């Protein structure tokens, strides 16, 4: 008996001939997300790897209408698209596709503004934790201890927790996902698309080049990030936090795997000393403390 999975998976809208590096997590994300989104979507691609992955114009490997745009402009442009589509009587979702730099740093004001206005758009942040397209410089989303081309001895500050910032905006839907868990990711995107109003999904995208691991291991590293509780999988909807089964063990400190296991499969933490590792572990523990409070409904954003 066929479950039709193959058929669904063949309906993605990523064409061949992308300019992505081998093992690219953003390619995986686009395959999965487009499978979940279906047809009626317009993409706003904010400056980043995905501006290049599409390939040389006038051709494009994304089988969607795509508006490529400057770094800080994605959510505002999507707001304009959503308004125009309404006015044309078209039921089309405007989807922003941005990297972590475009999200956590230069695009933050625009993102926050669109969230405040509760624009009917879906914002997807493909988080590879640095400015990978321009050579791997640190971003606000790079974790403490990770070396990048602008922090060769390791970053000294914590990763900006954008999902928390977005939850504090009281938007209808905020979720985290990972390219290591395709079903979870597709479910979330499907849900986000159906929501009227602002939804935000941040997808962890382990990048073989910036993170320094073998390109065949992208999915494995993405899984390990979740298993070691480095990257939570949750969704926040109507003031309720749901945590994916895959990381329920992270709610209890005693069952959390040490982050070291996640660090050792990559090259970018090779300069991280004991103290940096401890600080990163503390960041993770604090994040989970807060998630636990939300999960137990002792705290609401």
């Amino acid at each position, binding site marked *: 008996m066929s479950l039709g999975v193959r058929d669904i998976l063949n309906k993605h809208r990523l064409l061949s001939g992308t300019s992505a590096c081998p093992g690219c997590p953003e390619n995986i994300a686009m395959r999965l997300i487009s499978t979940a989104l279906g047809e009626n979507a317009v993409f706003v691609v904010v400056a980043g790897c995905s501006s290049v992955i599409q390939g040389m114009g006038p051709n494009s490997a994304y089988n969607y209408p795509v*508006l490529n745009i400057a770094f800080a402009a994605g959510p505002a*442009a999507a707001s304009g698209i959503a308004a*125009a589509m309404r006015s044309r009587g078209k039921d089309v979702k405007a989807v922003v596709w941005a990297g972590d730099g475009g999200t956590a740093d230069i695009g933050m004001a625009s993102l926050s503004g669109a969230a405040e206005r509760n624009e009917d758009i879906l914002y997807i942040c493909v988080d590879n934790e640095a400015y990978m397209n321009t050579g791997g410089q640190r971003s606000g989303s790079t974790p403490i201890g990770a070396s990048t081309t602008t922090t060769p001895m390791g970053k000294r500050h914590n990763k900006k927790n954008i999902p928390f910032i977005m939850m504090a905006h009281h938007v209808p839907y905020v979720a985290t996902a990972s390219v290591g868990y395709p079903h979870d990711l597709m479910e979330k995107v499907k849900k986000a698309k159906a929501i009227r109003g602002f939804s935000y999904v941040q997808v962890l995208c382990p990048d073989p080049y910036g993170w320094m691991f073998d390109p065949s291991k992208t999915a494995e590293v993405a899984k390990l990030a979740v298993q070691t509780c480095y990257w939570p999988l949750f969704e926040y909807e109507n003031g309720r936090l749901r945590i994916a089964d895959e990381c329920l063990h992270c709610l209890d400190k005693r069952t959390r795997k040490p982050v070291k296991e996640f660090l050792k499969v990559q090259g970018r933490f090779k300069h991280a000393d004991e103290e940096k590792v401890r600080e990163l572990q503390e960041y993770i523990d604090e994040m989970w403390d807060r998630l636990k409070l939300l999960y137990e409904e002792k705290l609401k954003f």
Partner: protein
Amino acid sequence: MIEKVISGNDAVALAVKLSRVKVTGIYPITPQTYIIESLSEMKDKGELETEIIRVESEHSAMAATFGAAASGVRAYTATASQGLLYMHEMVWWVAGSRIPVVMTVGTRAVGPPWNIWNEHTDFMSERDSGWIMAFASTPQEAMDLTIIAFRVTEDERVFLPMMVGMDGFILSHTKTRVYVPSQEEVDSFLPPRRQPYVLDPEDPLAMGNMFQPADYMRLRESIHRAQLASKEVIVEAGKQYMKKVVPIGSYSTLNESYRLEDAEYAVVTMGAWSLDAMQAVDELRNEGLKVGVYRVRFIRPWPEEEVVKALDGKRVLVLDRSVSFGRGGQLYTEVRASLPNAEVKGVITGLGGVSIGKNEIKTVIRKFVERPEGVEWFYPKEGEKVELRSPRYIK
């Protein structure tokens, strides 16, 4: 068409409404403020189909307007001063994408130091962005040019955005008589929106992704050619506008000549003070000085042929309300380049709201007759210059 006493802001807001703009992305501050306030009022009264997106910055204002325009609807925004500078990146993005958008710039000084008054530096700093750039001299013209802008930008020979400048406060906030057309009149002039690239799931295309150098350069050339081609389109649209919408105005040429036929001297101006200059010229003519005014309405495309025809053989004085530091006034530079053999003098004045009226312009013209070369800074009152403090070494 009915007669109303309204400000430049109100006139532009009515133009936006009458042009059936569908989306307006605005960061609602700076001196053009109440264009959006007027629009918001109309919206609340149910008189307006425009959807207003009140964004968090001018960068976003242009991005939202661009997103809407790229999705196939008429889109509009307004800004000035620091706002325009903050928007700069997106201003270029729109022209580079060949997407029709219309914007008002209620021109104003650029800080520091803070100065909220009128000058043209903000507007002039976008000369190279690829936008068609018109400058109004009355609230009537601000309204007319805004409506004309939609027709010009959506013409297939053009497909470029257009901004309309109007002097901050002097035109934006001053009430005067304006002939406002009816919806039917504007409808008879503005065809439905047309554009070559539209975001549409039925025809998925990518806009703005990476281009090979030669293709990129070809696009750049196409923008330049569209600018040149727009001259004809602007004149055509202007004539149609006078025929179908408001039968006054002087839109059968890009720029305007006043008493130039027999003039020995010509004063080149742009914006509201052109009318002061025309009065000054009338009075000087009574005193026997043969002088006329050449009013620049379009700075882009630059109406080279009209400029040469109107000014060649005359002694030319260019008044600039803006400055390109290290060079002189931008208008001066443009005129100078068009008239390599003429006697051309540039005067920079009126910056940051320094008040220049008919009498000051008469003084400037008289000084020019005495000393007709170079670039000068003119202050209407003595003692307005600010000296820098003497420097000190820092320990």
